[in-house]
């Protein structure tokens, strides 16, 4: 099943490569990956989406935890959590503008650029809603698509912090 692993990691050169390398080294796949410095910028928060059994993910989180630069790891999928993804799309079939805008409306769709050649829009939603929306638009109708990968956060008062 799909898992979202959240990692707090020292913002040091090479730290990201240690995490990414570990997935390959231990025979696991990364489906999506998002990373960026948070708060004081001395550390980053990563959200890694992967697939595997409970045992697989337990082993992945244990191995990630062993990386010296990793401060904390959590498998968000163990409990209730929020999961969101951000996308940017570009299309040139201008007559589809209305249809696409309608599809993306529940996902906070915004027009970022509109001219006589192309339209660029953004949207936010759970990965499954994003999937449904892209399907509804029709992949062939897009000239470009970029996805942030899943971002995750625990529900309720539970926090992942240093």
């Amino acid at each position: 099943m799909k898992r979202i692993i959240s990692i707090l990691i020292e913002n040091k050169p090479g730290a990201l490569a240690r995490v990414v390398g570990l997935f390959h080294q231990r025979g696991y796949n990364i489906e999506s990956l998002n990373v960026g410095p948070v708060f004081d910028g001395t550390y980053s928060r990563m959200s890694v989406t992967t697939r595997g059994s409970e045992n697989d993910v337990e082993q992945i989180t244990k191995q990630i935890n062993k990386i010296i630069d990793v401060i904390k790891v959590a498998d968000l999928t163990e409990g209730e959590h929020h999961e969101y993804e951000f996308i940017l799309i570009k299309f040139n079939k201008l007559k589809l503008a209305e249809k696409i805008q309608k599809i993306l409306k529940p996902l906070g769709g915004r027009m970022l650029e509109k001219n006589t050649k192309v339209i660029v829009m953004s949207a936010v939603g759970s990965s499954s809603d994003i999937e449904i929306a892209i399907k509804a638009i029709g992949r062939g109708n897009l000239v470009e698509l970029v996805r942030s990968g899943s971002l995750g956060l625990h529900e309720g008062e539970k926090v992942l912090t240093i």
Partner: protein
Amino acid sequence: MKLSGGDLLMRALKDEGVKFLFGYPGGAALHIYDAIFRQKALQHILVRHEQGATHAADGYSRATGKPGVALVTSGPGATNAITGLATAYMDSIPLIVISGQVQSHLIGTDSFQETDMIGISRPIVKHSFIVQNAEDIPRIIQEAFYIATSGRPGPVVIDIPKDKTDPSKLFQYKRSKQVTLRSYQPRVLPHPGQIKKAAKNLLSAERPVIYAGGGVILGDAHKELIALNKILKAPVAHTLMGLGAYPSNDKYFTGMLGMHGTYQANMAMHNADVILAIGARFDDRITNTPSLFAPKARIIHIDVDPASISKIINANIPIVGQVKESLIALIKEIKRSKLKIDSDALESWNGQISTWRTKHGLNHDLYLQKTKSKMILPQVVVQELYHATKGNAYVTSDVGQHQMFVAQYYHFNKPRRWINSGGLGTMGFGLPAAMGVKLAYPKHEVVCVTGEGSIQMCIQELSTCMQYNLPIKIININNEALGMVRQWQDMNYGGRYSASTYADSLPDFVKLAESYGHVGMKVTKQSELRKTLNKAFAMKDRLVFVDVYVDPNEHVYPMLVAPNGSMQDMWITKNIKA
């Protein structure tokens, strides 16, 4: 006083208690080498190949428990250190490798002797550092030693661009009282509830087995292991890496377990009702087919590394903690418990193990017997070596049949006496490792048991032994073939010796040793074996290379039947499957 980066490095290493630097100079490391020239606290040992430097530092570490340090230059120096790093990583050895790097402004430009050492070594180190500011060198050294030696130990790489050791740039030397890293808390104490559960299970066990690995030695917990089994009276089996922690001459010792473990050790594991795994990681050379492993056993697993627990075999009672502290807690809990061991059940279980031992156990008196074979048996070489050294030597080995024969027939009674590459299985390890051991313990007998295949992988270090006067004894168990490869080809490939023989092209090892300035001896008859060994060991201040020609048809037994076998499925001899 202000110091240059190179001098900061020397000072920091000295403050970590480093005595020896095993290394090889080159362009990117020359500022550091000049700093070595200016100081007296550390002795630099010039090896003949960087692989030798890493194995020598590794051997030093395995024998002493202190981190070993190797110093190499950038590019080829760094890549030659990779095998040594992987060797140390697989056996959790605290090895520090300092690599020179091209100047900062040249990094990424494919400059002369540039290689991405941090990238190349990433999967085989516990951690790595690249020095970005020269004044950070003391802090990085302190952190590197702390990381290498704490928790589950492992190798650490420190990559130093040449400009960070520029002799014209001076900095203040600062050393912290203690290292703290917010992302790394290696000290883990066992959970009292888990210790209670473990004690209860062990005390009510009828067929317990202690399966103890290298973690007992790394965690300096051999005394606690012995103390625990004074109470439990359970059979104790060691992994290849654990040998020496529990004394081989103790009546509860079953010998090594696993691929070439003894019949009684493997049968005990397969039939146990409780297995106490201590600092061991259930690797494939132990468990055979995981789904068939110890079907009746509840597993208690003590390890400082949580990722080792339930990785291959699910642990019923996981205990994450330092081995020493965990065993102390377990002993305390057992003493406090109202439960007592079931003496009747244990007597009958230990009796069963004796029966297995009698049935298919190893014959430790082969050397006393007149054998049908005209050639010397390799097992006999190890038995004679054991008697010639009174079982007191530090023994290093390379990889293959000779390594297994030492594990089976040299009875290690003390920890850190058996120095071999278990996890990675690195041929070429034995001789340089022996150099590290000999430097650490110059008054002790240090023996490298090797084969004519392995020894040729780092034979150049004979020259280093001459330069630093290291009177190691090398016992070359010469079967004129890659013995373990040949054994597998005999058993699984219809005796087709693909690329495993070279009898016509072997060097004359006696002359070879002599050309390096050492003593060479050759033995072909069993009647000469003891005499020659005694003569070799009498030459206290010389390196003696004893080339012993053995029966090339000899195999290592027992051998687990693989694939699809369990631990009770063993070849006992060429024709008997138990």
